């Protein structure tokens, strides 16, 4: 393992998942590692004196139980529903807004400080306000997700415009494109790769927030499952089951978004190293 760090694996970027050709061996090794970890977990939980953590088997049984009662699907759908609406709403508004702020210098300069101050405010800090405006329920959760997604997407779009190569804008003007043609045929394709990455990362953030929003403001969904299982009977197997489901769905969402990055007309934007 001490032989040359990057001999023949230079194409394998951490996080790129399952794309390298030497993959089957790596696959096996990962499965092996996960199995070992699960095994350690199982043994540790069987031998613990104080009940710190349920065993993997208990968690698996918990998931089965949820499926049996129809709650699995119900909760997953509820969480996904809120994320979708909040995220899409934010995307539809934030992307054009951010592109405009990036393109027109003065409005961008004007609003930037405001954005920088609003950004570090955790979406959860908005919970009292959102409950005040929307009451406890779906809308409050969707609003929180919207809030959590809006500013990051705006900033991503602004930065993406800033990274467009000036030569491309000059070339477009040279060929006689009008402003609207320029925006459609040059600006938009040029920002697409960065936008897609930004969308993927923000979706991940939205998924984190939905869990938190559900823990506090609604009574369905995976976040609610976690809080409720603990409050109504210390069912930690269900708590961990909820966590596992959250992780799994978050991962699936991420993989789904990554597939957009493979479309040929945006692939150019992702460097191969």
């Amino acid at each position, binding site marked *: 393992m001490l032989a040359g760090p990057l001999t023949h694996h230079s194409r394998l970027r951490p996080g790129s998942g399952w794309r390298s050709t030497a993959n089957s061996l790596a696959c096996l090794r990962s499965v092996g590692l996960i199995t070992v970890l699960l095994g350690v977990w199982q043994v540790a939980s069987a031998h613990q004196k104080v009940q710190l953590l349920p065993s993997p088997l208990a968690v698996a049984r918990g998931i089965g139980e949820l499926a049996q009662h129809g709650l699995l699907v119900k909760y997953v759908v509820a969480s996904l529903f809120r994320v979708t609406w909040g995220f899409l709403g934010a995307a539809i508004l934030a992307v054009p807004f951010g592109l405009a702020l990036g393109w027109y210098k003065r409005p961008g300069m004007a609003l930037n400080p405001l954005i920088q101050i609003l950004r570090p405010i955790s979406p959860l800090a908005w919970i009292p306000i959102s409950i005040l405006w929307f009451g406890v329920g779906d809308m409050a959760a969707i609003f929180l997700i919207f809030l959590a997604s809006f500013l990051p997407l705006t900033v991503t779009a602004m930065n993406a415009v800033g990274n467009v190569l000036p*030569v491309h804008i000059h070339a477009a003007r*040279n*060929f*006689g494109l009008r402003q609207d043609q320029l925006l459609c045929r*040059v600006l938009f*394709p040029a920002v697409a790769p960065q936008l897609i990455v930004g969308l993927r990362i923000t979706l991940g953030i939205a998924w984190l927030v939905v869990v938190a929003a559900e823990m506090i403001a609604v009574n369905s969904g995976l976040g609610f499952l976690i809080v409720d299982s603990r409050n109504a009977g210390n069912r930690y197997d269900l708590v961990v089951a909820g966590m596992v489901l959250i992780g799994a769905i978050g991962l699936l969402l991420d993989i789904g978004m990554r597939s957009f990055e493979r479309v040929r*007309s945006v692939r*150019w934007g992702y460097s191969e190293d």
Partner: protein
Amino acid sequence: MASIISSPISQKLAKASAAPQKRIARTKLRAEGVSMVFDQDNNRVAVLDMVDLEVSEGEFVCILGPSGCGKSTFLNIIAGFLSPTSGQVRIDEETVRGPDPRRIFVFQERGVFPWLTVEGNIGFGLFKLAKAQRAERIAHYVKLVGLQGFEKTYPQELSGGMKQRLEVARALAVNPDVLFLDEPFGALDSITRLTMRSELLRIWEAERKTIVFVTHDIDESIQLADRVIVMSARPARIQRIVNIDMGHPRDISSRRYLELRDGIFEQIGLAHKV
């Protein structure tokens, strides 16, 4: 413009100036008293100083000078991307106010659009044409620059030389009157550069556009141009205009070529031995 100093340099180069002009073509481009001063963080930097230039139609002109001397700035001004601090530029007796599809700029590198295929790039400026016409034009220029078979390829899969050819094809496809090239072969290795120069000349002879070509490579300028405009360092002025009185193809080991080369070497003040 050309100053008459009695010396071996001017003798070598004067031979060229004395040769009769082959074609009496009309003036295509006229730059008068172009000066450019940049205001960078409260620092006024004079980049160009009273540059005058006339280019005839169908002529191939090279602007030669060391890096950073302002020749790219000059090219951007006559192409309409920058406004000069003083002076004006006229193309076809019309003052230049901005970029125009009749005069296409070929950029240093990375100018091709990475999200479009070869076909997409070449067809980029052809949005006013009907579909059939556009396809025909694209096919013609793909062939002209030698990119057959790569029509559906994306630029990231092309070599540097191919990307440059693609950019030239894209520029030519809209049938401009004038082409501006800003050190287009700078990013290529010297072997590919030789090939690309022949390609460019071949295309020029086929289409006879007016070309203004900026370079820092002395050999390149003599190999390509009808006239070489030698510029001084910043603030750039025209030091000398040299007529290259050789026909194409030019023998780069001929005596005349070496004379011209020597002359420009000395004009710029470079030693002959390394």
